[in-house]
């Protein structure tokens, strides 16, 4: 549906947006809201704690506001907690975020649909595969190719997502343990995670920020020997998880710190839109892999783990049990990968599928020699096609789509809008951490300062995903 227009399009006009008349027009200037109006301010950065306490008590102030973070080792990155204390009791808790905002969603609007994967993988840096999967599933929905994704691509996606879930849960438990002072939990957690990162490196080439799942399939097939590597890793992971379980499950110190801490029941979770392990710790078996399956999850055999304690301890136990379920899925994936050996991993449509046939070249990476020989030597059409698809990208019909996947932390939704161009018109991610962090106040108010750390750790927020 096109018409003719003789006017020459002029886009040289300057774009508005930044209003210089507004206060604080200098975007890099200092904030104007740092006024504490004559209240006593103490900066805690070393020194004798008792001196500070004496000084503070001398003021006879009942109400103390403690600013925890954004640079604090136990707030999972740059989370800022503003706590109002009455003695050791938290009377009010607020979370301040935005310290890691990098404008990923805005940046995605200036790159092609395929390049978008490279951006969204960096949001929640512990669950790269989930962002990639959610984004690619929504792009595929816009393209209308959901049913044409090859089986092998979906199997690889599921396997990578489940390994990512284990990876994320290991970090959640490891850092959570460290924040409570249990460094052995941390070292075991990171040791086991290392195995998964090694698998990721073997399959995708990168340990994190993989950009492996692409609209239409995955970037490349799993390399030779990957199935055996993963099979070995699963066995090792089971052993490592057993170690973690022995260390944690019935540990009286851990139970003392976590049982009944960070309580949030089903009513609270529903009201606040909480999903993931936090919701499942209230006994509700809500898991998108079961209730709204994608990537063929309905064909895998696994259980949704629930517990009924609504507290940090049960969330930790859920995470451990979920890792076993994930490994179960990974093993099923491995059998299917062996069965589908040699099948395509990218959609047939050559207008969408990248022509890249990656292989290890002389420099350790790059396109396969065969493909280079074809496009440079014999087929001019193939060369043009390759060039157009990579530089310009494919067009996506106008419309919008929302696809959600069950990330390690809850519902990760991706809302994409296309205007028919080669770049996303809008890509919005509903990150589970962003939503779940709202529960900090509900979980922490009325508890001790030390419990705040445990409660926040049980939400498992990753600020890269929260701030995007």
């Amino acid at each position, binding site marked *: 549906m096109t018409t003719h227009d003789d006017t020459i399009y002029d886009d040289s006009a300057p774009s508005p947006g930044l209003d210089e008349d507004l206060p604080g027009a200098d975007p890099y200037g200092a904030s104007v809201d740092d006024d504490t109006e004559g209240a006593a301010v103490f900066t805690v950065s070393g020194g004798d704690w008792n001196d500070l306490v004496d000084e503070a008590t001398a003021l006879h102030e009942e109400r103390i506001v403690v600013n925890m973070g954004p640079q604090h080792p136990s707030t999972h990155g740059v989370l800022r907690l503003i706590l109002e204390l009455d003695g050791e009791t938290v009377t009010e808790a607020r979370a301040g975020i935005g310290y890691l905002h990098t404008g990923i969603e805005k940046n995605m609007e200036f790159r092609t649909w395929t390049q978008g994967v490279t951006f969204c993988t960096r949001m929640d840096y512990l669950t790269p595969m989930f962002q990639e999967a959610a984004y690619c599933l929504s792009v595929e929905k816009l393209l209308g190719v959901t049913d044409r994704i090859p089986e092998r691509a979906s199997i690889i996606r599921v396997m990578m997502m489940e390994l990512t879930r284990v990876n994320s849960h290991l970090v959640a438990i490891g850092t959570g343990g460290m924040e409570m002072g249990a460094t052995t939990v941390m070292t075991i957690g990171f040791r086991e995670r290392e195995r998964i990162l090694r698998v990721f490196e073997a399959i995708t080439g990168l340990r994190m920020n993989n950009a492996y799942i692409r609209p239409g399939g995955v970037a490349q097939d799993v390399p030779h020997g990957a199935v055996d590597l993963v099979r070995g890793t699963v066995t090792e992971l089971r052993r490592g998880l057993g170690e973690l379980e022995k260390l944690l499950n019935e540990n009286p110190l851990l139970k003392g710190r976590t049982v009944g801490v960070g309580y949030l029941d089903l009513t609270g979770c529903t009201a606040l839109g*909480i999903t993931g392990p936090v919701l499942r710790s209230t006994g509700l078996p809500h898991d998108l892999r079961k209730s*709204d399956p994608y990537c063929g999850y309905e064909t895998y055999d696994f259980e949704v783990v629930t517990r009924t304690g609504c507290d940090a301890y049960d969330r930790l136990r859920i995470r451990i049990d979920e890792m076993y379920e994930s490994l179960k899925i990974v093993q099923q994936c491995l059998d299917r990968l062996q069965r589908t050996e040699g099948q395509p991993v990218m959609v047939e449509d050559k207008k969408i599928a990248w022509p890249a046939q990656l292989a290890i070249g002389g420099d350790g990476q790059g396109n396969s020699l065969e493909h280079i020989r074809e496009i440079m030597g014999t087929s001019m059409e193939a060369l043009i096609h390759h060039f157009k698809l990579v530089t310009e990208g494919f067009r996506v019909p106008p419309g919008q789509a*929302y696809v*959600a996947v069950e990330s390690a932390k809850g519902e990760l939704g991706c*809302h994409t809008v296309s205007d028919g*161009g080669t770049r996303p018109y809008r890509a*919005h991610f509903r990150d589970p951490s962003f939503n779940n962090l709202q529960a900090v106040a509900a979980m922490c108010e009325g508890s001790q300062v030390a419990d705040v750390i445990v409660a926040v750790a049980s939400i498992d927020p990753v600020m890269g995903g929260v701030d995007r």
Partner: protein
Amino acid sequence: MSDDGTDDATDDATHLESGEGAPVPDKETDSPQTRTDDDPRAVDTAQHTGGGRVAELSAEDLEPVKIGERRGMFGATRGQDTSGYGGLVTPTLLPGATPRPYGSYYDEVADRLGAALDASVGYEAAVERVVVDRGEMTVFVAREHLATVARVLRDDPALRFEMCMGVSGTHYPGEEGRELHAVYPLLSITHGSRRVRLEVTCPDDDPHVPSVVDVWPGNDWHERETWDMFGIVFDGHPALTRILMPDDWPGHPQRKDYPLGGIPVEYKGGVVPPPDERRAYS
């Protein structure tokens, strides 16, 4: 059904034949302005389908919504497109209203919503149009009735969308009078992960949308984010402040008129311009 260019659209509608949406005979065009409550056929239809507007969709409603246009053969701007035919104009069209049946569970949701709304503000007044596209249902809600619709969707036992998965903004500078859209993905765990999307629009010079925080408290931060990024003011939000950008940040970064920013980067003797100044094809 866009507010802009109603005259043009009306002209188009008169000579457009529509199979499904036969207009009500005693009216020239069907629009919220000309629609009356006592229209016998509309009442009949509403009773039959629980508020569904089967017979009432006019050709105008079914028209796709134009949000902008693309110029040139490859969409390249900044005078970089030296190839192809530069005088081409292609409108960018988002899907228009969908006639019944919607398919899947969407008919049931629409019927139920219609029946519940007719008891209060009325389906016609609250729901501008329903779009079913790519297997997803989008309900365009008049912004003044958003709170009512939200409450019905959450509280009605047959609907029970107890979770709202946030709000995402979209800026369409080309859709005059409806530049800003707020999109609410809803989830019903009770009914086995049913999903419906609410969409509310507001003009750029009156960017107000009622808040749904008292219906879905979890939307607190999401609405703050959308205010921060798009400048949509959510009336009734308990503390609508910036959340991702600094408190004194000027402008709303995700709007289409806000520049991406960036500096040219030198690499191996060449200069790579910032992303928004590179050759682009969309």
